[in-house]
């Protein structure tokens, strides 16, 4: 395996880490308006308060890793998806603001405004992230100069939007399961009910998304034709998703959360494998695609970055897991 492939795998791993971690706190945001009163909404925000910031760093580090390892992808993708990215940034800022400022004043109108900001920003961020991923998998117009030659509206194609909706449902389910683990009493009952209903939407969208991917995204069909063993990835992802349902039926959100995480990892592996060795495929002229060889940094930089990643990331994962352990158990209404 060459360095470029290692870096491809690491970028996929960083973004998967982001989906696993920030996924549930985005999901808590999407579910936020379903909470009945101020007390419940406070509990929802409290459940993610100590950890959401560290979760979001996975996205930042993913962005930094793409910049360092594949600067041409960073440049083409981020300038090409300009408006989408600016909206994503605005949504992430508004989310951070609502988490910070909601509790600063007692007036119901103040809290209400932040509640809706939090929910709207979480939904928009999830939708944009999913849509962006859908477009990357599908391919975007790239000119011979390696620059994006499409438009913002072009990103809103059916497959991209389907992936956006799928991401919203996935994160909502992820968030509901997390809440099921972190809360007790009536709120836990509610969270489990939200998990049930978001599972139903998630299940339908998962089926639609997989069918659309198999039949309309040639690279995924091709992957399965060339490497039939890869068929295990979507099959296991569906099985893991089915297991989420089973565990929910047994009233065990912890195991359902694990099953859903496994499903996320398998889907990420499927999309990663189908992209490889492309990072940003070009549609309709595949010869302009940015791949791990024509868009990468020098071998020396890839080697340096590998040392940074291999020394730094295990430590990060260790202390992040440790801090999650500190905050294990049910969320306390007064965490200060």
């Amino acid at each position, binding site marked *: 395996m060459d360095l470029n492939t290692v870096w491809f795998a690491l970028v996929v791993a960083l973004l998967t880490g982001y989906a696993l971690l920030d996924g549930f706190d985005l999901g808590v945001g999407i579910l936020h308006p379903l909470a009945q009163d101020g007390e419940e909404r406070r509990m929802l925000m409290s459940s993610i308060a100590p950890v959401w910031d560290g979760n979001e760093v996975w996205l930042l580090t993913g962005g930094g890793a793409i910049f360092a390892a594949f600067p041409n992808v960073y440049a083409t993708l*981020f300038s090409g998806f300009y408006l989408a990215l600016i909206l994503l940034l605005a949504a*992430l800022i508004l989310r951070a603001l609502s988490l910070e400022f909601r509790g600063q004043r007692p007036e119901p109108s103040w809290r209400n405004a932040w509640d809706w900001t939090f929910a709207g920003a979480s939904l928009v961020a999830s939708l944009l992230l999913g849509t962006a991923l859908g477009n990357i998998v599908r391919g975007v117009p790239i000119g011979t100069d390696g620059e994006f030659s499409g438009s913002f509206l072009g990103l809103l194609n059916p497959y991209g939007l389907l992936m956006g909706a799928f991401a919203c449902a996935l994160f909502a389910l992820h968030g509901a399961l997390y809440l099921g683990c972190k809360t007790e009493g009536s709120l836990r009952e509610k969270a489990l009910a939200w998990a049930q209903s978001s599972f139903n939407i998630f299940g339908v969208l998962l089926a639609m998304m997989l069918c659309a991917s198999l039949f309309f995204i040639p690279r995924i069909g091709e992957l399965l034709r060339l490497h039939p063993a890869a068929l295990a990835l979507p099959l296991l992802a569906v099985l893991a998703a089915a297991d989420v349902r089973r565990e929910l039926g047994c009233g065990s959100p912890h195991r359902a959360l694990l099953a859903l995480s496994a499903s996320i990892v398998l889907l990420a592996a499927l999309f990663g494998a189908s992209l490889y060795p492309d990072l940003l495929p070009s549609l309709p002229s595949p010869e302009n695609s940015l791949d791990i060889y024509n868009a990468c940094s020098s071998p020396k930089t890839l080697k340096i970055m590998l040392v940074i990643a291999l020394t730094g990331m295990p430590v990060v994962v260790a202390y*992040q897991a440790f801090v999650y352990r500190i905050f294990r158990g049910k969320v306390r209404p007064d965490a200060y």
Partner: protein
Amino acid sequence: MSVELLARIQFALTVGFHYLYPPLSIGLGVLIVCLEGRWFFSQDPLYRRLSEFWTRIFGLTFAVGVATGIVMEFEFGTNWASYSRFVGDVFGSPLAAEGVFAFFLESIFLGVLLFGRGRVTPRFYLASSVLVALGAHLSAFWIIVANSWQQTPAGFHIVGEGLKARAEITDFWAMVFNPSTLDRYSHVLGGAWMTGAFFMVSVSAYYLLRKRHEDGAKASLKTGLALAALASILQLGTGHVSAITVAKHQPAKLAAFEGLYETRTWAPLYAFGWVDAKNERVIGLPVPGLLSLLVHFDPRVPVTGLREIPAQDRPPVNFVFQTYHIMIGLGMLMIGLSAAGLFFWWRGSLFEQRWLLRAYLPSFLLPQIANQTGWISAEVGRQPWIVYNLLRTSQGFSKTVGASEILFSLILFALLYALIFILFAMTLWNKIEHGPDEATQEPTWT
């Protein structure tokens, strides 16, 4: 307006606004470690209350710093794609290293600091405060590495030609410790410590003048003042060393700092002045020979003037001159303010000097303005280069992003940041009004 100009305005707005917060959290991070350490070793509950109070303010500052910082990580790609292609091989690794080595550390342990007091041992809590401060300092380090490489590029070679040309790394450590990294890093840290310290001094002075939370305010005032004095003296040294590096590696920038057109011995340093760029002269109060003396330790050694530099390679002189001199003037003022404080502290009458406390009241603004103007002079002084002597700013912006798109994002950021600023100021004011007493818990959603 052109794409280049709009992209520059947007970058200046977003980075300038962002930079209101990280120096404050770096400085407060150090001060919180001091207070938390006092509490750990003395078990005096006053210090615990103070540490908790300043940690609440740190949390607010950090949250806004993060919210505005994400933009920076992505803006190179969105607005400066051609720059990103050119420098990615070199410039990307410090940014990624910041995430891996610094930002995770800071964000994750801040969760413990804000929400974990009751869940961890006092020793672990103290360690968390150290790790958060360490994370903030490391974060600044990697960002300064990246920015210093734009000023004094090293450890690379150029591969390819024309539009395909790019910088590739040859020596990682030469890139990390490029000629200006350590000078600029120490100067930025000094500025950050002053920002935190004078903020603490300001708030404490406010309490003392109003006769509120006096025990806490006295302890905070001393802690803040000690760091303010240390950092403002340190800044003289780091500023001086920085200027020498600039003279050696970026002569056009140094010449713009002092409006020096003619290469001459006994080059003057201006206390203040106005650059008449058309007639290539400065109207103001010069100290003859001081610039030569400071840069070369000998007034008889010539300093390079702007006439040696082709007109198209010169930065806008008066703008750089003014921002640089505002920074220097404020630096001197802050040395005076902290020296006065130390003097009366030594005499044992610090808290009776109401005139001094009144002078301290608005002093939180001084390091903030000095930070902003210092950065403006450093970055505008680098113009017209985005990477000094290698790539022009006009070659760096994104080719696929139109002026109307940037105008849209610029207005969006301006509105969002105005909102953030109002919310931050309002919340900060509530926290200060509430003060360090735990008698009445302030309302929170947590």
